[in-house]
C-alpha cells in the first residue's frame, strides 16, 4: 500500500525574501505612510483656514494628548498579539489614578509607595484577567468585561468624585517638557521601547507572538501557553496602571471617571488595529500601535485647529478605522494569492 506521495510543490511566490517595497506594504509600515499623508493634508487644510498647523504648541499638544492612550495601547498591543484583548483597562485607569492620588495625599515622600501600590494593584488585576481566561476558560471578551464591571462597582462605591492629591513634584510628570518633548511623551516612548524590546528581543516576546499566532502550535512546541497569556495580561494591566499614574499627575488628583471618559478601552483597541496589528493575534507590533495612536492624535489636532465639532470627528474616526483595516485585509489577500 505504498501511497503516491512523492511530491514536488512549486514555491508559492517567486519572492522568498521581502524587499523594501514589500516591507512598506506591511500594515505596520502603512500606518506611517498614512500618518505622513495625514500630516500633509492637515497642513494644507489648516493653511487654507489661515492657521499654522504644526506649531510648537500643537506639537506639544499632540504628544500630551496621545501619551496616556499611547501607553494603554502598548499594553493592549501585547494582549491582542497574544490573541486576547482587554476591556478592563478604562476602569483600571480610573482605579489606579485614585490609588495613586490617595496614597500620595499631596506628600512627596509618598510618591514611591503610591507608584508601587499602583503597579501592584494593576498587576493583580492583570493576573485575575489572565487566570479567568486560562483557568476558568472564559472568553477574553467576557472575562475582561466582567472584571471591568467589578472594578467599576468598587470605584463607584468608594468614590463620588475626584479624590486624593498629587504633590507638585509628581504633577511635573504631567506638565514638564524638555524643549518640545513633554515628560509624558518620554514616558510613553519609554514604555514603547520596553515593549518593543520585550517583543523583539526576549523569549517572552517570541512566545506572545507564538501563542497569538496559533495556540496549538505554540503548545506543541513546548510553550506554556496559559502562562504566557497570564503574563501578557499582567503587562497589559500594568501599562494601564502607568497611564493611571500619568493621568493622576496631569489632573493633580485621582478621578473615578478619567478612564471611561477617555474611552481608553475601545479606543486603545482601535489604535492597535489601526496600527496594523491583527485582532486575531500573532501579527503586528508596537511600532504600528505608536503610529495608530499618533494618527488618531493628528486627526484630533486637525479637528481642533479647524474647530470642527467633535461629532464630525467621531464619524471620521469610525470611517478611518474601518477603511484602514479593510486596506490591510486587502494587502494580505493580494499577497497570498
Amino acid at each position, binding site marked *: *500500500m505504498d501511497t*503516491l506521495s*512523492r511530491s514536488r510543490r512549486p*514555491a508559492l511566490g517567486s519572492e522568498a525574501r521581502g524587499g523594501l517595497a514589500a516591507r512598506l506594504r506591511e500594515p505596520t509600515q502603512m500606518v506611517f505612510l498614512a500618518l505622513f499623508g495625514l500630516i500633509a493634508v492637515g497642513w494644507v487644510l489648516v493653511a487654507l483656514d489661515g492657521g499654522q498647523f504644526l506649531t510648537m504648541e500643537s506639537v506639544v499638544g499632540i504628544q500630551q494628548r496621545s501619551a496616556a492612550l499611547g501607553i494603554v495601547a502598548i499594553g493592549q498591543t501585547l494582549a491582542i498579539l497574544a490573541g486576547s484583548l482587554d476591556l478592563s483597562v478604562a476602569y483600571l485607569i480610573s482605579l489606579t489614578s485614585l490609588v495613586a492620588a490617595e496614597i500620595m495625599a499631596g506628600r512627596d515622600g509618598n510618591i514611591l509607595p503610591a507608584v508601587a501600590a499602583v503597579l501592584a494593584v494593576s498587576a493583580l488585576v492583570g493576573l485575575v484577567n489572565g487566570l479567568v481566561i486560562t483557568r476558568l476558560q472564559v472568553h477574553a471578551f467576557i472575562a475582561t468585561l466582567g472584571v471591568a464591571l467589578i472594578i467599576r462597582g468598587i470605584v463607584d462605591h468608594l468614590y463620588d468624585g475626584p479624590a486624593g492629591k498629587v504633590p507638585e513634584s509628581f504633577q511635573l510628570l504631567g506638565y514638564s517638557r524638555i524643549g518640545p518633548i513633554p515628560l509624558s511623551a518620554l514616558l510613553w516612548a519609554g514604555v514603547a521601547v520596553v515593549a518593543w524590546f520585550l517583543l523583539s*528581543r526576549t523569549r517572552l516576546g517570541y512566545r506572545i*507572538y507564538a501563542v497569538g499566532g496559533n495556540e496549538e*502550535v505554540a503548545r*506543541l512546541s513546548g510553550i506554556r501557553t496559559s502562562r504566557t497569556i497570564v503574563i501578557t495580561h499582567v503587562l497589559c494591566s500594568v501599562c494601564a496602571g502607568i497611564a493611571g499614574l500619568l493621568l493622576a499627575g496631569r489632573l493633580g488628583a485621582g478621578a473615578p471617571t478619567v478612564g471611561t471618559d477617555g474611552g481608553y478601552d475601545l479606543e486603545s483597541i482601535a489604535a492597535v488595529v489601526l496600527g496594523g496589528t491583527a485582532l486575531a493575534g500573532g501579527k503586528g507590533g508596537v511600532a504600528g500601535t505608536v503610529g495608530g495612536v499618533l494618527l488618531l492624535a493628528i486627526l484630533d489636532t486637525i479637528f481642533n485647529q479647524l474647530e470642527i465639532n467633535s461629532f464630525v470627528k467621531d464619524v471620521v474616526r469610525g470611517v478611518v478605522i474601518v477603511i484602514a483595516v479593510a486596506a490591510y485585509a486587502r494587502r494580505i489577500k493580494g499577497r497570498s494569492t
Partner: protein
Amino acid sequence: MDRVLSMRGIGKSFLGVRVLSGVDLDVAAGEVHAVVGENGAGKSTLMKIICGVHAPDEGTVEIDGRPVSFGHPLDAQRSGIAIIYQEFNLLPERTVAENVFLGREPVRRGLVDRAAMEQATARLLDELGEHSFGPRDAVKRLSVAQQQVVEIVKALSVNARLVVMDEPSAALAEHEVELLYRLIGRLRERGVAVVYISHRLREVFDLADRVTVLKDGKLVTTLPIGEVTPDELIRLMVGRDLGTYFPPRSTGAGEVRLSLHRAGNHKLRDIDLELRAGEIVGIAGLQGSGRSELAKAIFGAEPFATGEMTPSRPRSVREGVALGIGLVTEDRKAEGLALRQSVRDNALLVARATGAKGRDGVGDLLERVRLSPPRQEQEVRYLSGGNQQKVVLAKWMTMAPRVLLFDEPTRGVDVGAKAAIHDLMRELANDGMAIMMISSELPELIGMSDRVVVLRDGRIAGTLPAGPSEEAVMRLAASEVA
C-alpha cells in the same frame, strides 16, 4: 540493548472511541524504528503520547528506564524528545529561525540571541543541503516542501536522544528525501533513537532496523526488518488480501454526464475529461499534481478560467450544485462538516442551502448510507471518522446529484466503514450517477475505478483502462522522476 524508549500496555480513547489499546513499543539508542499501519491505525496518537501531547489512559512510558508522565510537550522536550508532527506545526508569520527555535530560543544576557539562532538554523539548513531559502525568510512565503524542511530542521535542532518523525517525507522531493536519509544515518551514528512513520514501504525497508505494525489501535507485531518481506508487511497491516475486496466493476457506462474540453485555471491546464453515468473514474497523481483542484474546479469552488465544460462551466459552488454536482471534500473536518451540529442538520445542509425539497427522506438516507446506529440528533463531532464520512455522503445524496466527486473518501476511515463506503459508491454508480474518485491509496483507486486518469503537474498525463498495474500508474504520475 540500550533502551531509550519503552512503552507498555498503552491505551487511549477519544470521546469514548478506543484508538489504542495494549500497545507496547521499545526503541533502542541508535536504532531506526519504523511504525506502520493503515490510516487511522493510531500511529500518530501513539507518537503524541510519547511527546506529551496526549496523556495515555492506561499503560506506562519509560525514558532511559525511568517512568515518565508528561503533562505538557515541554516536559517531553526537556527529556530529550523531539518530534516532527504529521500536521503542519509552524507559525506562518514568523521567520524560519524563529520557528525552528520556537519555545527554545537561545538567550544571551537574558535576550534572545538572534544571531546565534540564525547561524544555527543556517548551519542545519546547510547540512540538509537546503539553499533555496534562509533563516530570515517568513515561513508563509515558503512552499509546502520547504516548510517540511523547516519542520525537520526544527526537530534536529533539539539535539534530542529520541526523534519521532511522523511522515516527514510526505511533502519532500526526491533529492530532499535522500538528504533526510543521510541525516537519519548521522543521527543513528550519534546513538540517537529514531521513530519513523511512513506509508512508503521503500523508505521503511531502506531505513529501519525494526518495524512495528499497528492495526486498529492494537499492536500486531514488532519484527527486525530482515525478517519480513514487503508483501508480508502489507498483509500484517491490512490483515487480509486486498484483491478480492472491492465490489464488482461497472457493467457498462451510460450517457455523458459531464465533459471537459481544454479546461484550465491557475493550477490546471488542458483538461479533457468525460464522466459518464454508471461509471467510477479514478484520478491518480502525486501530491500537488492538482487532483483536488480538479475536483474543486468541476464543482465550482475554484472555477475553471478557460476551456469548456458541458453542460456548463460553474463559476461558484452554487452553480455547481445547481448543475447537480456534489463534492465530498478531502478534509472532512475543515471542509465537510459543521462538527457541532447534529447528524440530521449536517445531512440536510445542502438541501437547506439550496432550498431543495425532499427532507423527510433524510432518515431513510442515513440508513441507506449505513450510518450505524442512525442517531439523528447526535452532534457529528462525536461520531467516528467513518460515520462522519457517511454523513457527508448523505448530505450530497439529499439532492440526488448527477455527478458526485469524491476526494480521498476513505482517508482516516477504518476498514469496516471503508468497505461500506466502497459498496455505496458502486451502488450509486449502478443507480446511474457519474462518479469521480481521487485517492492517494493506489490499491483502492485501482480496485474501485472503471478508468484511471493520471494527473501530473496540472495536466492529464494519461488514461488507463480498468485494473491497471500500480507500476503503470506510477510511471505516468511520476515520469519526470523515473
